[in-house]
């Protein structure tokens, strides 16, 4: 007969052995589970320690110092208040009422959109926006409104901005300490040189200049005058790139002979087909001043309007992919590997998709050679495919990929050991390293989720240009880059993207442009300071 089970057969207080056995019958199973969990923890820890023992010190990204910038109050001028100029001025702590309203509404609509919160949590940089110069009245007025907008980190601004019709009038004002230049590239060199001569510190948006010779002239003037110059490559503030730098500096990738960097965009906006402001006309735009340094001059009209608002599409004002997007990728690699200027560059491409009258290519590739570093840097760009490829540092012992791994790895990096690695051979053979899985991943803010929505915003986020993290807190690298510049002025030191690395960027981009335009491989002669 089968025994039937019910609960609590024992009675009273006599807790016999049988009772206890039944009560604790499953305890050994719990023991088995925890024993296995402990084994797994040990194994994971062993793996981790084996990798991390020579993989990068685990220290955090540099903390942002103090919430209020110390030292003297600085007065800033902005020259060129277009899309990028507005972002830079926001980085300094001033947004237009329209932007604030829109950002706040976006945050209401989409709770994951942190643009507004990130702006309001910026440090108060102890500056005023006192000078505004833009050749388009609408934008100049917007900048004036931003200078007095009280919705900002740090509260009510100390001073209101004044508009200057020409940047030279602004530079003549002794009350202005420093200027931010965000004009189209063809104006950069003249303004930098004049500003430096007038004793103003300069933050200039990339690309540094439109031509090779302008870059040399800017370099000499900045050196001569000793101003604090920052080039607008905010990637210098991105902590995953700092992590990448540590990894390369410690030789964890082994010899790196090939680096591949990429640009992929697939939208009219991403291809610089920007909106033509309906308020733009002969009366609101100073077209003659705009085109003054451009090689080709055209009368004001429909074509001029297109060129004014979509200037990146013409070599008269910029250098297309080279100065806009390759410059970022180049500077990121220069930050990670300290490459300097290339010896040889060959570039090619064409206008394959945007046959809209532009003269800059929409598919562009450049090969930069560094014979003394045993390295080739390959750049490949298209404006008609969003295939996200990321940037890859190919080492003999391991490969490091930054971006390009999908949304889950937004601007993180992944290091994977090479199956034929010399350095890791023993560990691969003993099974400590599995080359199918990364030996190191870094995804900053992985516990934080960004509501980065538009395709172009996502493109920049993947490159680490929209947000970075400091001790887990989300920061806008543009703000950090402006802060680095202002702190450098106050502390009389060089900022992270100074004129030296700025010159590397300009040389790399202009050599690529020169090669594309002439159809030949070009060489940099550092003694004669010429492209030959």
């Amino acid at each position, binding site marked *: 007969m089968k025994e039937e089970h019910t609960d609590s057969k024992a009675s009273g207080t006599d807790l016999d052995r049988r009772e206890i056995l039944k009560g604790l019958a499953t305890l050994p199973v719990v023991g088995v589970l925890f024993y296995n969990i402990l084994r797994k923890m040990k194994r994971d820890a062993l793996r981790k320690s084996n990798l991390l023992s020579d993989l990068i010190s685990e220290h955090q990204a540099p903390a942002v110092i103090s919430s209020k910038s110390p030292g003297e109050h600085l007065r800033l001028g902005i020259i060129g208040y277009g899309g990028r100029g507005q972002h830079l001025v926001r980085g300094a702590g001033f947004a237009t009422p329209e932007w604030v309203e829109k950002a706040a509404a976006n945050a209401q609509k989409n709770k994951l959109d942190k643009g507004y919160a990130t702006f309001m949590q910026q440090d108060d940089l102890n500056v005023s926006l006192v000078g505004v110069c833009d050749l388009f009245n609408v934008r100049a007025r917007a900048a004036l409104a931003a200078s007095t907008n009280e919705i900002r980190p740090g509260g009510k601004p100390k001073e209101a901005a004044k508009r200057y019709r020409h940047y030279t009038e602004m530079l003549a004002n002794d009350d202005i300490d420093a200027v931010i230049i965000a004009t189209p590239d063809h104006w950069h060199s003249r303004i930098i040189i004049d500003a430096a001569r007038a004793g103003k510190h300069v933050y200039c948006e990339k690309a540094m200049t439109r031509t090779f010779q302008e870059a040399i002239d800017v370099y000499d003037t900045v050196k001569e005058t000793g101003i604090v110059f920052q080039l607008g490559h905010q990637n210098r503030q991105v902590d995953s790139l700092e992590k990448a730098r540590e990894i390369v500096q410690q030789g964890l990738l082994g010899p790196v002979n090939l680096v591949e960097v990429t640009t992929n965009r697939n939208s009219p906006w991403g291809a610089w087909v920007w909106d033509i402001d309906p308020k733009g006309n002969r009366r609101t735009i100073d077209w003659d001043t705009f085109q003054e340094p451009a090689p080709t001059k055209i009368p004001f009209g429909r074509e001029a309007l297109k060129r004014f608002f979509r200037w990146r599409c013409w070599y008269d004002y910029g250098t297309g992919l080279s100065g806009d997007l390759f410059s970022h990728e180049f500077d990121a690699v220069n930050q990670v590997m300290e490459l300097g200027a290339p010896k040889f560059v060959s570039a090619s491409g064409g206008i394959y998709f945007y046959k809209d009258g532009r003269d800059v290519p929409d598919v562009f590739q450049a090969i930069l050679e560094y014979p003394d570093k045993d390295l080739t840097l390959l750049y490949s760009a298209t404006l008609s495919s969003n295939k996200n490829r990321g940037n890859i540092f190919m080492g003999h012992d391991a490969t490091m990929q930054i971006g390009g791994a999908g949304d889950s790895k937004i601007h993180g990096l992944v290091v994977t050991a090479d199956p034929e690695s010399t350095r890791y051979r023993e560990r691969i053979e003993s099974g400590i390293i599995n080359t199918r899985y990364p030996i190191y991943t870094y995804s900053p803010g*992985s516990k934080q989720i960004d509501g980065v929505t538009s395709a172009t915003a996502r493109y920049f986020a993947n490159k680490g240009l929209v947000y970075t993290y400091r001790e887990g807190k989300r920061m806008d690298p543009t703000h950090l880059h402006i802060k680095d510049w202002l702190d450098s002025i106050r502390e009389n030191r060089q900022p992270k993207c100074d004129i030296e690395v700025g010159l590397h960027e300009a040389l790399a981009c202009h050599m690529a442009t020169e090669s594309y335009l002439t159809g030949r491989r070009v060489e940099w002669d550092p003694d004669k300071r010429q492209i030959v």
Partner: protein
Amino acid sequence: MGNKAVPVSLKYTNNQLIGLSLLRVLIGWHLLYEGVAKLLNPYWSSAAYLLDVQWIFSGLAKSIVANPVVLGIVDYLNMWGLTLIGLALMLGLLGRYASIAGMVLLLIYYFFTPPLLGLEYSRPWEGSYIIVNKNLIEACALYVLYVFPTSNIIGLDRLIFRNNTQPTEDLLT
């Protein structure tokens, strides 16, 4: 819990008892390790899962992610909920409460990401599902364990509640 639908004390054959207890311990094992694995991973967060939530709870899930404090609480509840429910099921501690709590948790997972036609998830399932998935089945199994409790026969409940369950048994026998 002594309502009519669910008698407190049941008589099982050996095989019935073994089967039900085994089921309880295995589900407990699964939930416990899910919880412990999350506790041990400092980078774990439910955010990625919540962002993938579809259907009627999608808005709720996104507002949880948008608020770091709430997200932190949800993460905490998840990790400790799974761990404690799993441990309770394995040890047979407050077995029927644990069954119900586990069932509710699994149903939340199910209704947050149900495998319904037309819903696309960015993370792949580890199997092929239509309407029914393992969360639903495991929740149903916990319902079975709630109706056919075993912790008062094999488990700590036997030692803890041995006195108060006595009269109930008399009534039933």
